[in-house]
């Protein structure tokens, strides 16, 4: 058991060191959601009035509405980027070193997913701190309650990223992931607009959004931030995390990539 703990803590420590040493990467990951918050949300504030909806107790400005979605956006980008690099690196570089560990491959992959997810949380909380200064201030207890919700979402999205990267060869560059995974997941969700607004425009778009796992991720975080519990979102996120992680580990096989290259 001790060997497993040493291994896991070593993987987390390495991700932490890389995070600390690559400050520019950290800053660039913050720029994206901050632009949405400080520019996009400010511009659309007047256009998009938000009625009283759960979990909010009162009318809220648009900036308040999109905070959970932007927090999840950080996790979405990090999860996809991290998983893509795991696949890209598996035949060379750091993943090869990871895989020479005598511990089971399933344990190694899950440790890696958990470690990158933990580091992503630091970026989310840095973003929430800036948002706090900007004036979007969820209850302090909500920020604490949101921690496990954010971790679950980070895991779900990393596992999904790994699964997609394993399965689809065309996703071997980030542009493909942006166009076919990140943008559809993000825009077809409740991150930027409440689903009832979407329903007013189009019933079938509403259903696409309602079935999107990212919508449930955003709602789980939104409710947690305001000290509310959303059982449906939690069930969906827990279930999908387990399914994605299981399939991702089962399909992570460098041999398949090599086979695809030769065919």
């Amino acid at each position, binding site marked *: 058991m001790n060997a497993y703990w040493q291994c896991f803590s070593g993987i987390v420590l390495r991700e932490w060191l890389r995070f600390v040493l690559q400050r520019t990467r950290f800053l660039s990951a913050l720029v994206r959601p901050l632009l949405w918050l400080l520019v996009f949300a400010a511009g659309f504030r007047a256009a998009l009035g938000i009625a009283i909806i759960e979990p909010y107790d009162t009318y809220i400005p648009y900036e308040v509405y999109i905070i959970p979605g932007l927090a999840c956006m950080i996790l979405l980008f990090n999860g996809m980027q991290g998983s893509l690099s795991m696949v890209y690196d598996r035949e060379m570089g750091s993943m*090869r070193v990871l895989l020479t560990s005598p511990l089971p491959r399933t344990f190694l992959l899950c440790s890696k997913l958990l470690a990158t997810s933990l580091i992503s949380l630091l970026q989310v909380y840095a973003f929430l701190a800036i948002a706090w200064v900007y004036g979007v201030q969820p209850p302090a207890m909500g920020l604490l309650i949101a921690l496990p919700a954010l971790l679950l979402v980070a895991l779900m999205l990393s596992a999904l990223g790994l699964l997609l990267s394993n399965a689809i060869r065309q996703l071997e560059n980030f542009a493909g992931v942006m166009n076919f995974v990140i943008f559809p997941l993000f825009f077809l969700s409740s991150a930027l607009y409440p689903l009832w607004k979407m329903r007013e425009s189009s019933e079938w778009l509403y259903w696409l959004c309602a079935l999107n796992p990212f919508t449930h991720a955003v709602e789980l975080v939104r409710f947690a931030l305001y000290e509310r519990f959303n059982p449906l979102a939690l069930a969906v996120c827990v279930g999908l995390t387990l399914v994605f992680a299981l399939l991702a580990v089962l399909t992570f096989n460098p*041999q398949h990539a090599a086979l695809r290259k030769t065919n």
Partner: protein
Amino acid sequence: MNALEVSELSFAYGAKEALRQVSFSLAPGRFAALLGPNGAGKSTLIALLTRLYDLQRGDIRVGGCSLRNAARPALKQLGVVFQQSTLDLDLSVEQNLRYHAALHGMSRRQTGFRVDAELARQALTERRRERVRELNGGHRRRVEIARALLHEPRLLLLDEASVGLDPASRLALNQHIRSLCREQNISVLWTTHLLDEVQPSDDLLILHQGRLVASGQADALSLEHGGDLGSAFARLTTSGAVQ
């Protein structure tokens, strides 16, 4: 007990055969050079030895433990230096070593002790806090060797480890690995395409078109197939030479 035993190993990428019925063994403390032209199957063999690929047919045993049935004890006895550097450039020498120790589940105390010992052996003690990015190619290779030896493996696998080094560093590396063989009784499998890295007393394995076309002591093989190593290699790796 042999440090490495490869038996009846075959591997195919779909319909394309990469290795066919490859068998050889490596005794403790021996230096074996694995030679082969491009496309001979060396990379596939390394991928199988390091568990990157799963075994299809045949078996690999490291220190008597099968990669198929007992991967954990087998991998514990294997140290690897990959062709391309796999160090974290932004991390220090010591941080890289400690990460590797953690992956092998080594305790903190044991790690501290082993890191000190391997850094001293590679004459890197004073550079332990330097970032790997600041080191030259030769020093980076030494860090990778220190890393590969950290968990005290019985078998050290070096995949074209001298690629990219200047002639002096290449020679120094080769000699250093040989001294490890002698002093630590570690077995070494050294893949290369450079004939001058092979010495007459080495075990020699020649792969060609996925088959092991020759194995034995280098001087004996040279004598049997043309007189010197260059001619023997050329003869054995010409298409059609496969028996």
